[in-house]
């Protein structure tokens, strides 16, 4: 490298900084400069494509990691204590000994960090080494380079199925239309193909590369210009994001614009989220209590020391003066002793608790992710835990907010019914075929005895309505029917790909894709079904499907009847939403086959076999405000300009043309509306299809405006939307479709169970209220005898309601109703159905509280037509007002807000991409998994962690108090009767593993019981096991036990010739046994691991102490344990002290288990039964409870009226269950 003045270098570096920071990027091709020195390169200021996500470097790992760790207050505190110990006047230990615990903790954390960083380093290296092709002007062809060598300004060739290495400007593709298909599964999980177009006008080819030399691109956020052909383009259309995969395209050539860390993918890549669980927050309060306790004890010690010194008539022999022979004044000395005491008793603040909690959570997550019941065979996906530190929150959930589509339902749309020009075509055949298919698949499943066939994919197959088929066939002229199907085929953004172009799945970034199922794979399954089902079904299914029905829904009719000879079967539709795919498939089934789609044109094959190529003039894409999309095409024959619009019914109905006098249109509209209502009642998703014919002039003028909007720099989104709204008027209604979205497997059961577990389930959906209510009934969110309050208001009455005095009259009535003693039992459960507009009003500050109050009394709440923002607002409102633990579950991008707002966000990896999963804390593949995740793992994690933490506090207090009591007998001089090394080992070695194991593996109740008796979940809700009360009880117990462990040996050895360490040895041993046996009392289920670890700890204690007593001559406790172990008194003292120390807790447990009837205790009793007996009992009890629930309304004894109905009945249930149990 040639010499450069330092000044020039600095100038250069500053220029580089400026160039990077500017939102205007001046980029020049690298080719003319190839081979020049680095500092002459025009793009040298921009980063190259190498990425580095590691936090540390090898050289500076230790200082950097220490710096990170010292950001934690707790670590600082302990380092401060260790340093304090080096000050001679306050010294309590040998200074080196005091360093050990903090060093061990820091080292453990550092090892963990180093390991994580090393994994990042390895994955970076793997990425940086990936090959790609970069054009070299020397070799005049694309040469293979590694990713990290790609620089801004290079020309990169990406072949089909390869991953794009950096953000590229697409210049050329092998496709004649200049189109490149990409899949963004690696970025957002969406598997549908998206189209990108080469920058028009820059027609480079591989042979003619001269033009590459003069490319000079100016990138500005939002748009992009070229020096050569002066063009302004919509950026996202010509942009290949780094990380996406090229599909269906031979190869593509692009110009590197952003590389490495400046790519969009890297910029969007935020680190993991840190959430703090509720338990941890409460824990911190208790740590503060511990600090207060520590200070109190230290002050007592310091005061005691003062009094001790003061009480002496003169200086005794045993008081050691300073070097110069005089003693400190008592007050100064006791001031020093305060700090010595802090050092001595520091363990009271559990230093290792935080590390232990982290370890426990890692273990808990290991078990959650390894649960077979949370594994979905269809998608080969297990649960993913993205947030590592909120496992125990799963056991405390009180409210669940669920999305509907894709969460409760499959989000696999099946076309069910349609209404064209006011006539209904119910497609009744669909029903029976589906049933037949289901049976067939079920049989195959049994036969093959494996996971194999995904049961729902075949249902994209549409069974035709014969009447409608005749209707289409009968007419050749372009009528409304044809228009309807053309609209279905054209008005979408479905991309057509060949099913034969099988995608490679084994790319290195493909961590997510395994979760996502290919949408279009139905075609593969088609053959066996058409051939085999008919034979198989009709013979075996004779009774259930009647013969005539079987014939009408015969499966080979539709393909043979309509399928043209073209290889339509090979077409594969990649749709952004499953609704679109379902509609396109419907159109195809009726003969209107979408053959291909480019940005400029759509080719549709008509039933006659003719292919029509429509020129696409514009696509007005879907947005959640308009709730519709439109495609503007020019008809190839009539040259008419036609706008096809598809959208939510209310969004279309408002825009219909109102022809004066033309009754027919009005009738169609009202008939269609009727049909729509009917569909909604059936739980179908409805869409309206409309069209509009524009005259050329109209189009021209609009197009100009549209161009302006597209080119606008400011407020572009709004302008584009306005332009869309402008043209979507005076539509002519063609018809409506009803698409079914089936409920997922065992959703009703899950919802029921969750509700029995005391969790309120809310459904927040964008669907129509009718659809939502229907799904609500289907999934048992609403019951038939519920009192359903339907709150909806039209926009017109809005002002009226908000102005009136009787703003919100419902709540008091409801309360009166439910509080009326006569109604306590007869009241049906109240359910609330609210629509989005009403919700907006209810969320206004003045109504909020009343709304929350009402909602709290409702058993279930259904919010319809809510926007993503509203979803998160509702979650936040409930979370903040009621101070409850909330969980939000959803699968789509529209649920992201809600997922992030809730305490726990659960994403369902379904059909709608990965945004929800990315934002979530836990990602599951099915709604039903929520049941086991919450009821079993949530309960376990919570009770395990809560008990572990309480135990940890107890353990440290019990151990440290021994030292404290000793202070009363050693003049409060902060001396310990146990060797310091053994004290350190006590916490680090002998008693550290059992609580961790306890926190990972304990099982208070078996999974079967937890699932069988959802009521058990309630124990974790609200305060749960970890409360102020339990904390102080265990602290008191710790004090009591330490008193026993100290004073029994004290009275035994009082006045004898025992020496200091010989006295400490039984104390330490008693403490160990008490602590471990205390844990043994707390352990609810003993496995071989428990036995091994507990015994291991005891053995380790004796081995280490004995070995230590032999090895170290200068150890003051030399040979002490050996000497003690030959003395029978040692065993007698240990035995009685341990027994006395544990007696109260033991008795407490015995009495609790014998006298009280807490559900958990009963469940544990049941758990000891034989599994078959137990299952039988659960079954009987469930049916019994069902009867009881019916009966309670009649019996109506006098249940406590202050309890909420649900609660009282469930408690009653448990009581009755117990009675039943006692009878068995």
């Amino acid at each position, binding site marked *: 490298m040639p010499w450069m003045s330092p000044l020039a270098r600095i100038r250069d570096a500053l220029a580089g900084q400026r160039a990077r920071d500017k939102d205007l990027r001046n980029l020049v091709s690298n080719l003319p400069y190839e081979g020049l020195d680095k500092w002459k390169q025009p793009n040298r200021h921009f980063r190259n494509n190498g990425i580095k996500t590691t936090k540390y470097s090898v050289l500076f790992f230790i200082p950097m990691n220490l710096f990170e760790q010292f950001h934690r207050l707790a670590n600082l505190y302990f380092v401060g204590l260790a340093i304090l110990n080096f000050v001679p006047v306050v010294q*309590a230990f040998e200074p080196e000994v005091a360093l050990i615990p903090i060093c061990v903790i820091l080292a453990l954390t550092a090892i963990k960090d180093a390991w994580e960083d090393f994994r990042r380093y390895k994955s970076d290296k793997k990425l940086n080494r990936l090959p790609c092709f970069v054009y070299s002007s020397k070799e005049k062809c694309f040469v293979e380079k590694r990713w990290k060598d790609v620089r801004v300004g290079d020309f990169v060739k990406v072949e089909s199925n390869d991953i794009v290495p950096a953000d590229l400007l697409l210049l050329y593709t092998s496709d004649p239309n200049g189109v490149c298909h990409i899949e963004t599964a690696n970025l957002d999980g969406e598997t549908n193909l998206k189209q990108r177009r080469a920058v028009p006008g820059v027609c480079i080819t591989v042979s003619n590369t001269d033009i590459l030399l003069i490319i000079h691109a100016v990138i500005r956020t939002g748009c992009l210009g070229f020096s050569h052909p002066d063009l302004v383009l919509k950026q996202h259309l010509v942009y290949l994001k780094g990380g996406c995969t090229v599909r269906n395209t031979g190869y593509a050539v692009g110009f590197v614009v952003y590389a490495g860390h400046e790519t969009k993918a890297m910029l969007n890549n935020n680190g993991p989220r840190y959430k703090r669980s509720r338990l941890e927050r409460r824990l911190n309060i208790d740590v503060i209590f511990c600090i207060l306790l520590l200070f109190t004890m230290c002050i007592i010690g310091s005061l005691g020391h003062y009094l001790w010194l003061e*009480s*002496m*008539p*003169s*200086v*005794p*022999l045993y008081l*050691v003066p300073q*070097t110069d022979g005089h003693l400190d004044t008592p007050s100064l000395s006791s001031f020093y002793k305060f700090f010595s005491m802090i050092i001595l008793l520091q363990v009271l603040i559990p230093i290792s608790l935080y590390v232990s909690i982290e370890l426990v959570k890692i273990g808990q997550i290991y*078990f959650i*992710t*390894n*649960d*077979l019941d949370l*594994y979905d*065979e269809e998608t080969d996906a*297990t649960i993913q835990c993205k947030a590592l530190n909120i496992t125990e929150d799963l056991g405390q959930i009180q409210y669940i907010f669920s999305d509907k589509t894709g969460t409760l339902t499959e989000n696999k749309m099946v076309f069910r019914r349609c209404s064209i020009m006011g006539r209904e075509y119910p497609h009744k055949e669909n029903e029976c075929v589906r049933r037949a298919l289901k049976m067939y698949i079920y049989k195959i499943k049994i036969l093959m005895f494996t996971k194999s066939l995904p049961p729902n994919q075949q249902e994209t197959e549409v069974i035709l309505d014969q009447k409608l088929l005749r209707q289409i066939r009968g007419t050749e002229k372009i009528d409304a029917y044809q228009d309807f199907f053309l609209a279905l085929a054209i008005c979408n953004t479905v991309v057509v790909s060949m099913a034969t172009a099988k995608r490679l799945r084994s790319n290195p970034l493909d961590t997510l894709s*395994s979760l996502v199922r290919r949408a279009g794979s139905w075609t593969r399954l088609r053959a066996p079904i058409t051939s085999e089902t008919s034979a198989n079904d009709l013979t075996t299914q004779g009774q259930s499907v009647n013969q005539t029905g079987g014939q009408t829904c015969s499966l080979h009719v539709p393909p043979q009847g309509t399928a043209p000879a073209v290889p339509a079967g090979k077409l594969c539709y990649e749709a952004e939403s499953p609704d679109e795919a379902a509609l396109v498939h419907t159109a195809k089934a009726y003969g209107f086959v979408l053959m291909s789609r480019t940005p400029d044109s759509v080719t549709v094959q008509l039933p006659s076999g003719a292919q029509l190529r429509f020129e696409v003039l514009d696509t007005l894409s879907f947005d959640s405000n308009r709730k519709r999309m439109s495609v503007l095409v020019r008809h190839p024959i009539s040259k008419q300009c036609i706008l096809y619009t598809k959208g939510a019914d209310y969004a279309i109905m408002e825009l219909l043309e109102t022809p004066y006098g033309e009754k027919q249109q009005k009738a169609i509209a009202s008939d269609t509306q009727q049909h729509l209502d009917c569909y909604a009642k059936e739980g179908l998703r409805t869409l309206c299809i409309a069209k509009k014919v524009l005259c050329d002039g109209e189009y021209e003028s609009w197009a100009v405006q549209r161009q302006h909007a597209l080119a606008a720099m400011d407020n572009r989104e709004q302008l584009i939307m306005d332009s869309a709204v402008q043209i979507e008027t005076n539509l002519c209604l063609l018809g409506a479709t009803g698409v079914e979205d089936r409920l997922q497997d065992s959703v009703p059961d899950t919802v029921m169970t969750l509700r029995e577990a005391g969790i309120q389930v809310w459904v927040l959906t964008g669907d129509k209220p009718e659809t939502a209510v229907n799904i609500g009934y289907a999934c048992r969110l609403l019951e038939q005898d519920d009192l359903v309050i339907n709150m909806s208001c039209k926009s017109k009455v809005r002002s009226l309601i908000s102005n009136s005095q009787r703003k919100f009259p419902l709540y008091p009535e409801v309360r009166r109703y439910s509080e009326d003693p006569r109604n306590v039992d007869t009241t049906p459960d109240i359910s609330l159905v609210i629509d989005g507009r009403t919700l907006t009003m209810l969320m206004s500050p003045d109504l909020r509280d009343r709304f929350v109050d009402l909602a709290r009394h409702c058993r279930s709440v259904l919010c319809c037509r809510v926007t993503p923002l509203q979803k998160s607002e509702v979650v936040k409102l409930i979370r903040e007002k009621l101070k409850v633990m909330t969980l939000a579950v959803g699968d789509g991008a529209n649920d992201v807000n809600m997922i992030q707002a809730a305490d726990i966000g659960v994403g369902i990896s379904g059909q709608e991409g990965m945004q929800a999963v990315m934002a979530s804390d836990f990602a599951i593949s099915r709604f039903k998994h929520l049941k086991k995740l919450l009821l079993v793992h949530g309960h376990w994690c919570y009770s395990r962690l809560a008990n572990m933490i309480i135990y940890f506090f107890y353990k440290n207090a019990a151990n440290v108090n021994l030292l404290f009591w000793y202070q009363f007998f*050693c003049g409060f*001089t902060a*001396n310990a009767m146990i060797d310091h090394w053994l004290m350190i080992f006590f916490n680090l070695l002998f008693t550290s593993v059992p609580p961790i194991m306890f926190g990972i593996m304990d099982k208070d109740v078996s999974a079967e019981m937890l699932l069988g008796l959802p009521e058990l979940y309630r124990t974790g809700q609200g305060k749960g096991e970890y409360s102020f009360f339990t904390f102080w009880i265990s602290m008191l117990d710790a004090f009591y036990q330490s008193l026993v462990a100290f004073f*029994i040996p004290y009275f035994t*050895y*009082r*006045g*004898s*010739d*025992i*020496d*200091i360490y010989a*006295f*400490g040895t039984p104390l330490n041993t008693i403490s160990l046994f008490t602590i471990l046996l205390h844990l043994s009392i707390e352990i609810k*289920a*003993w*496995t*071989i*691991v428990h036995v091994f670890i507990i015994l291991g700890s005891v053995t380790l204690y004796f081995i280490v102490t004995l070995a230590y007593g032999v090895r170290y*001559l200068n150890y*003051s406790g*030399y*040979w002490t344990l050996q*000497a003690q172990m030959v*003395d029978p*008194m040692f065993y*007698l*003292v240990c035995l*009685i002290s341990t*027994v*006395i120390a544990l007696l109260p807790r*033991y*008795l407490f447990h015995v*009495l609790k*288990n014998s*006298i009280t009837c807490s559900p958990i205790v009963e469940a*544990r*009793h049941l*758990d*000891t039964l034989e599994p078959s007996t137990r299952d039988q009992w659960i079954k009987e009890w469930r049916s019994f409870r069902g009867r009881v629930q019916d009966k309670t309304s009649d019996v109506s004894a006098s249940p406590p009226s202050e309890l909420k109905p649900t609660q009282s009945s469930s408690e009653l249930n448990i009581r009755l269950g117990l009675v039943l149990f006692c*009878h068995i």
Partner: protein
Amino acid sequence: MQKKENQEVENRPDNTAFTQQRLPAWQPILSAGIVIPLFVLVGLAFIGIGVALFVTSRNLHVLEMDYTGVEKTSPCFSCSDPIKQKNCKCSLSFELDKLFEGPVFFYYGLTNYFQNQRAYGVSKDYNQLSGDLDYFTFFFSIVPDSTCKPYRYDVNNKPIVPCGSLANSMFNDTFNLYQMKNGVKEEVPLDGKGISWWTDYNIKYRNPSVNPLRNAFNGTVKPLYWSKPAYELDPTDTANNGFINQDFLVWMRRSALPNFRKLYRRITDGLPAGNYSLEISYNYPVIAFDGKKKVAFSNVSWMGGKNEFLGIAYLVIGSLCLVMSVVMLIIYHWRNSSPDAN
């Protein structure tokens, strides 16, 4: 083949008892029914142990006498201010009306003496005491160990051996026991061998291997409060000098509690009934901290010296367990019958 089929189920978790948390588990439920037998057993066992302990303890005899001399009536009153009275001697007479069975342990006791405080405990140089001559001399303020401060050097900067507060404060009263037989004082033989820990005497503390021992102490001074240097602690037995002097070892083993006794001698044959006189050379000052000095004669058993506390504790807890088991039985009955009653 299996592999190929597993392509799509590669994420499937292992179906083992451990990962599925289905390890066979024992779930004990502490309820009345189970614990009654346990309580009865524990109760009976404890009562048994308690009786054994109590009876053993009852059979032990202790004779404890205070000779601080605070009260004017005390024979050692004149000696109680040792600053005035150097080499003061006093004698304590007592009478045994029956045989004190041997072996009788002869203890001296101190109260309110905090051997267990931290600064006192660390004030010694282990290397010195293990006989390392390098630690006997002055060596640039490193040797002897600085923990010995301020008992490290004397005013002439000569190192003190053994240094430190612990050694410096060694108990230096001596006792002679006489039996009065017909007005004639007959000395009772006191056995001073093996009164310290075996490991202390044989392993932990060592004299420097210099013969004669006194040469090793050249250039050092004795601790300030000592009247004799370490190599002359026992004039009667040359082997019982230096750091392995039994009395020194006993003193160096710090007591756990402020009121303690330390073994002084053993009387193997026991004390027959009769009149005794204990002659005390009174040197050790205790008035400064309100301390008391005692002597104690005691015989020991497998459970050590006389201590009734543990026996009583076992008896109490044993009976408590029995009572508890009866309570449990009642609870058990009540619980079993209550559903029927309803």
